[in-house]
């Protein structure tokens, strides 16, 4: 019983991490029609920023670090969007290739700067003690991680559905030409959303640090999971990213625990299933 509960909690926390990664990816894709293959690298960059900051400065708070790393990654993402992606507006294939090139550059730069050994991210002191509930023992940090993902989801929901900025983003997603015609600065919106997505990925990288730790190849491990999440949930849908993340979190965790060698194949079954019967994804709209 303990096994199932612990693995269930691990699934939830992986699902939460995947949501932090996939929500930004999905948001960027929905607005900009851009498959941002740099997203895994942004996540890894966040983890490295967090790991290095916490290693060098004693007593630094994990949450402050996550915020700082998120802002730093958002700035890098914003620069990349302004300097490179805007030049390729009419060339979607070129944009994808450039994001792929950028992913290679970032992951290699991390290897140069911080070496090939993995750098652990310490769990915050006050969250190290396990939580006891109904006779079961839970690692507290993972519970907090799920909470963070849910809080991010709620915040993103309110941002998109209840604010002026969100209304402009939704207008851009539905019909960017018409949005431009009524005076919405779509091009600035692109930069904002790209920064936001990159920032969430970077902060998520720090929060995932205590579970995953920073190592070269983290980006290549996370990106396919994020891709599968958005293909499953529906590209451009926040709800889809949320549900998809937890589905993949469960499948991947239980797959690795029960059939370690076949985890990748099991991961890939729901994707085939969804593509076969509902190519737009669980919550995607037709034509989106």
């Amino acid at each position, binding site marked *: 019983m303990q096994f199932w509960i612990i693995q269930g909690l691990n699934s939830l926390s992986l699902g939460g991490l995947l949501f932090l990664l996939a929500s930004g990816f999905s948001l960027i894709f929905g607005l900009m029609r851009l498959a941002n293959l740099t997203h895994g690298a942004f996540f890894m960059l966040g983890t490295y920023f967090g790991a290095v900051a916490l290693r060098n400065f004693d007593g630094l708070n994990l949450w402050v670090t996550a915020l700082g790393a998120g802002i730093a990654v958002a700035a890098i993402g914003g620069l990349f969007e302004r300097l490179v992606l805007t030049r390729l507006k009419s060339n979607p294939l070129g944009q994808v290739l450039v994001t792929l090139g950028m992913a290679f550059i970032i992951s290699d730069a991390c290897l140069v700067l911080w070496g090939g050994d993995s750098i652990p991210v310490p769990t915050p002191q006050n969250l190290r003690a396990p939580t006891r509930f109904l006779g079961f023992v839970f690692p507290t940090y993972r519970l907090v991680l799920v909470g963070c993902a849910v809080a991010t989801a709620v915040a993103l929901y309110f941002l998109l559905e209840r604010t002026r900025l969100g209304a402009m983003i939704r207008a851009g997603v539905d019909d960017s030409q018409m949005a431009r015609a009524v005076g919405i600065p779509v091009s600035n919106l692109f930069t904002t959303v790209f920064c936001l997505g990159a920032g969430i990925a970077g902060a998520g990288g720090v929060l995932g640090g205590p579970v995953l730790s920073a190592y070269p190849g983290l980006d290549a491990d996370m990106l396919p999971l994020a891709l599968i999440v958005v293909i499953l949930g529906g590209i451009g849908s926040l709800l889809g990213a949320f549900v998809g993340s937890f589905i993949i979190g469960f499948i991947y965790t239980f797959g690795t625990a029960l059939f370690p060698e076949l985890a990748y194949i099991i991961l890939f079954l729901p994707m085939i299933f969804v593509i*076969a019967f509902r190519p737009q994804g669980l919550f995607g709209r037709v034509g989106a």
Partner: protein
Amino acid sequence: MKWLAAILLAALLVLLPFCSGDFYINLASQILIAAIFALSLNLLVGYGGMTSLGHASYLGVAAYISALLTSRYGWGHGPAAVISLAGTTAMAACFGVIALRATGLGFLMITLALSQVLWGLAYRMSDVTNGDNGIAGLTRPMPFGISLNGPAAFYWFTLIVAITAFVMMAIFVSSSFGSTLKGVRDQPRRMAALGFNPWMIRWITFVYAGFWGGVSGLLYVYYNKYIHPASLSTTSSAEALLGVIAGGSGTLGGPMVGGALVLLLKNYASAYIERWNMLLGLIFLFIVLVMPTGIVPGLSKLLRRGWR
């Protein structure tokens, strides 16, 4: 004029081992293998408008099947080659059914996800694939009792396969089927209205490209006598895609030039610096921003302008 040039080029390629050292002969073999691989990817990217980021799957899977059958199960090279090509083609048929549910960026993401799954498998299923150690100690085949262990013999063998592959792919794209493929790339709805089945045309191309990807994978494993999960990685797919786009997608000569350039660059760069991935990324940025149509179309446009 064109034919004369082709004959001259062929003669030059055949006679190459007589006028250069082993290093360059081996390099030429690698270039030919990269050229077949790039050409097969170009069928999808250039002629079909389907940008795949998972083409290394076919190279890697064909290489792994052949390596496993010959080294672990003691099969002969002939049957192993047949099974590995058949297996790779069958896999392309399945992957095609999945990936072609989407077009454009969706297609790209699905091919990337599928290839990453295979890469993960090659790493994790270590009692089958030997994981990160790869499979070493492989042999080269001996067609008709001729040993291919010398660089020149292997080069000629590769050249024969490469010329066959080139001719087969040239026939494929210049046939009437090739024209419908280009039609589907440019105007899928009109083609559908004319009574063609765009999905079927794309799928056949996908399978055909997977087959030639498998052929290049066999040559790759014969050449290296070693296979590692890295040949299934996104980097490997991306190198091929870079070759196709840098050379000029949708032309027959472009991907060969591009594939050769990427390979040369990789060989020379890795002699001086270790940062191949970073260089690859920078070249991607450069090519896409500065030369979006590729080297060969760019140069031939320049030449035509000079001619007038």
